[in-house]
């Protein structure tokens, strides 16, 4: 495969990558969704790159077609920069936390030209390297390291540009700085190999960082960038210093030889005349040199001045010039061989590119001296051009690459001839020496880099052990803690982190936290148990309270004179309301309803005691007033907590329907009148609630129940039931709903009223106990009083 073919393929591959970019560009343009900021940036950058690429390709085509390989390699480097830059764009466009939702996978697409370019550039290097393949590979390793840094740097450039827009992350600022440097180096100094490796490196890094979102990779990236940068700077500084000093030494040595030669030449007093004569008569001199003539001694030749030479006859002049030439030529050859020089010659330059040769230690192919032969930088070789330029003693080390045009040659100017010709005495540094030394320096640099990379790895390991490993352990511990909720395991795990720094204190805080969590959980559990216990006790209390009230209906099967029904409905588990009924003797039924101040357990306790006191006192006989007066006294005796109960109590004579009753601050009961309509008792003489006033007297009054008449007792929970708007149910509403019982049973009446209240209250919360008692008298009505 010829170089031209290689360059052609490289050119084609680069064109392909340009096409891929074009494709991406079009796909973004045609994107259906609204274009965001990222898209617009992508478009802007792509357009500029495409314009650049097209211009560059157009410029490079003539070079390419003429097949001037040297120039084409330069151009290839420029064009090759396009996929390189495209890769940078991709890194920018598909930063790790972004999503490329257009189906194309730029990372995969870009791999093709990247690999192709890599292979081609590597081949080019091997073909056009005057060194061995191994040496080329060695320099490839160095460039590979450079490339990795560029790759990471490019990746970060992409990220940072976006991250800095979104948030200000200090972590990314440092890599951004390095990235900019790296980009600068790549653009202005990078070789083709570094470029190719850089691209593949970028793709790999992007892939890795998208796949593994690990701290160590991110930190590692930064550390590597920093170390590689340091390595690059240091390595270059060291190399540059060492190589420059070596070159200066070489130069000084050669310059010394030049000076010796110059001194020798200037020993000829007729030199200004000789230079002109040599230049004018090269052929005659050559002829005369071939003839074996006697040469005068050097001392004699030195003495002859310009004026003397001019006064000689033509034949004498030729003899003199040839003799001098022979002496000097001999000196040239002697110097050349003695010091093992690369070059030694004297030329008269006409302009920058050509001139004529006077002396050259090397011979022409036919073995004759080169006197009078022309030199042309294009026709001869590149080396000649160095001697034609005014670059005396200037030597450069250019970033680890050997260039064919390196300025290793230099010259001394001779005094002007009579015609004003200024001859140049030239030499060059011996290439083999330089290359040998360069290889040595490269090895040295490579070693230094290797050590620095090892240090970077060591730093990473230390970072891993100090930060990442404890963090990972904590994460694992937390995960397990989620499952087993075992703080002991957590603290035993956390004890493995023995550091005394922030990580260590974090671990111990975490351990303490889980301990706290356990205590808290236990407390909550304890509270829950307590709550459960209280709830079950309350249920039992409610059970006791319910069973303390007569709850078997029908209650008196053997008493046809009446039908009674009652119900209690506490707002909380236990209530402060109660009802009661019992026969005081064969002919009398005592019935009562009471409402204790407040609700809940205190009210229930008080209620039980009031109930029992009334019950007990009633068994001893007496009217309700007597009973209430007596109970009131008993309660007031020990009532620091000022509990009180409103009580309405009546005793029904089963034979007559007459009820003797007394009221201790309770709601007036409702009874049915002759029209079978419920109304509140008008003549209700009431006293204070039981327990309120010590020594209070209660008085009886009498009501009559006619046959099939009802009396309805209730607590304020009934009339003060509230609808969602907070309106009371009210006594009027109650009476309305009680009306027209039509011979119904007391149970039916109470159930009906309940339903009515329920539908009134709807879903408003009920705060008060609700208790009702209904008695239907079925006995004889006392005809006349």
């Amino acid at each position, binding site marked *: 495969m010829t170089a031209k073919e290689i360059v052609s393929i490289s050119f084609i591959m680069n064109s392909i990558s340009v096409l891929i970019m074009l494709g991406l560009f079009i796909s973004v343009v045609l994107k259906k969704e609204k274009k965001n900021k990222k898209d617009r940036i992508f478009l802007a950058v792509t357009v500029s790159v495409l314009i650049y690429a097209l211009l560059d390709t157009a410029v490079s085509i003539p070079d390419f077609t003429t097949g001037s390989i040297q120039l084409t390699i330069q151009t290839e480097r420029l064009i090759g920069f396009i996929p390189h830059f495209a890769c940078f764009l991709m890194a920018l466009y598909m930063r790790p936390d972004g999503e490329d939702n257009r189906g194309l996978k730029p990372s995969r697409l870009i791999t093709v030209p990247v690999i192709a370019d890599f292979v081609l550039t590597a081949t080019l290097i091997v073909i056009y390297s005057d060194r061995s393949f191994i040496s080329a590979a060695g320099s490839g390793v160095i460039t590979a390291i450079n490339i990795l840094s560029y790759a990471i740097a490019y990746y970060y450039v992409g990220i940072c540009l976006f991250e800095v827009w979104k948030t200000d992350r200090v972590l990314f600022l440092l890599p951004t700085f390095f990235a900019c440097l790296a980009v600068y180096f790549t653009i202005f100094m990078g070789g083709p190999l570094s470029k190719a490796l850089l691209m593949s490196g970028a793709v790999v890094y992007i892939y890795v960082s998208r796949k593994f979102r690990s701290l160590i990779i991110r930190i590692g990236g930064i550390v590597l960038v920093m170390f590689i940068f340091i390595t690059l700077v240091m390595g270059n500084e060291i190399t540059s210093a060492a190589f420059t000093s070596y070159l200066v030494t070489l130069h000084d040595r050669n310059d010394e030889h030049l000076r010796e030669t110059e001194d020798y030449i200037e020993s000829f007093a007729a030199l200004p005349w000789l230079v002109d004569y040599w230049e004018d008569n090269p052929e005659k001199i050559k002829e005369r040199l071939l003839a074996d003539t006697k040469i005068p001694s050097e001392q004699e030749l030195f003495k002859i001045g310009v004026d003397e030479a001019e006064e000689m006859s033509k034949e004498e002049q030729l003899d003199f010039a040839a003799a001098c030439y022979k002496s000097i030529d001999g000196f040239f050859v002697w110097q050349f061989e003695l010091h093992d020089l690369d070059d030694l010659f004297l030329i008269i330059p006409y302009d920058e590119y050509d001139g004529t040769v006077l002396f050259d230690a090397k011979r022409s192919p036919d073995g004759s001296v080169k006197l009078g032969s022309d030199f042309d930088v294009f026709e001869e070789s590149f080396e000649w051009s160095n001697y034609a330029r005014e670059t005396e003693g200037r030597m450069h080390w250019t970033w680890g690459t050997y260039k064919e045009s390196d300025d290793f040659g230099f010259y001394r100017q001779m005094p002007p001839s009579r015609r004003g010709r200024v001859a140049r005495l030239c030499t060059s540094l011996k290439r083999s020496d330089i290359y040998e030394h360069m290889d040595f320096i490269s090895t040295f640099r490579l070693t230094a880099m290797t050590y620095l990379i090892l240090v970077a790895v060591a730093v990473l390991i230390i970072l891993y052990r100090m930060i990442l490993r404890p963090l990972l352990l904590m994460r694992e511990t937390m995960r397990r803690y989620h499952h087993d909720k075992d703080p002991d395991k957590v603290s035993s795990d956390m004890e493995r982190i023995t550091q005394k720094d922030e990580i260590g204190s974090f671990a111990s805080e975490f351990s303490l936290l889980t301990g706290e969590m356990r205590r808290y959980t236990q407390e909550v559990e304890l509270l829950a148990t307590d709550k459960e216990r209280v709830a079950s006790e309350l249920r039992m209390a409610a059970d006791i309270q319910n069973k303390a009230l007569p709850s078997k209906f029908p209650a008196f099967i053997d008493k046809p004179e009446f039908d009674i029904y009652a119900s209690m409905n506490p*707002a909380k588990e236990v209530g*402060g309301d109660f009802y009661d009924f019992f026969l005081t003797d064969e002919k009398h039924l005592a019935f009562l309803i009471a*409402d*204790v*101040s*407040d*609700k809940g357990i205190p009210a229930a306790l008080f209620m039980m005691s009031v109930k029992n006191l009334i019950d007990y006192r009633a068994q001893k006989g007496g009217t309700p007033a007597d009973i209430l007066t007596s109970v009131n006294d008993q309660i007031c005796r020990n009532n620091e*907590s*000022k*509990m*009180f109960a*409103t009580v309405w109590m009546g005793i029904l004579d089963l034979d007559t329907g007459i009820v003797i009753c007394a009221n*201790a*601050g*309770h*709601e*007036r009961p409702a009874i049915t009148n002759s029209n079978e309509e419920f109304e509140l008792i008008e003549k209700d003489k*009431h*006293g*204070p*609630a039981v327990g*309120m*006033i010590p020594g*209070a007297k209660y008085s009886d009054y009498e009501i009559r129940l006619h046959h099939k008449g009802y009396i309805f007792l209730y607590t*304020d929970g009934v009339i*003060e039931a509230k609808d969602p708007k907070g309106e009371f149910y009210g006594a009027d509403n109650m009476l309305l709903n009680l009306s027209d019982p039509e011979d119904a049973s007391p149970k039916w009446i109470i159930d009906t009223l309940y339903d009515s209240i329920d539908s009134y209250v709807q879903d408003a919360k009920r*705060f*008060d106990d609700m208790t009702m008692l209904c008695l239907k008298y079925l006995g004889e009505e006392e005809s006349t009083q």
Partner: protein
Amino acid sequence: MLQKIKDNDILTVKPEGALDTLTSPEFTAGMEGELDGIKTLILDFEKVPYISSAGVRAILLLQQTMDNQGSMKLVHVNEDIMELFDTIGFFNVVTVDND
């Protein structure tokens, strides 16, 4: 909720809203420690629309304290509450001065 005006040994308390099972404990708690050195306690019921037996008990407890150190009276008691007080015989215990 509970407005208090203290003038030497006279304390005027103006509760706002109904005094029932839910609000009475709040009222009692609000009065805690307020009665030290008070000779006259005035309960202004202007903004109390309704009172339940729990509220009555709270007043009863205040009355008990004031019986030992001075006097207490209720003012601006509305008709509904007056009726309730009448029903449970509360006027025998507390002084209501609606003028």
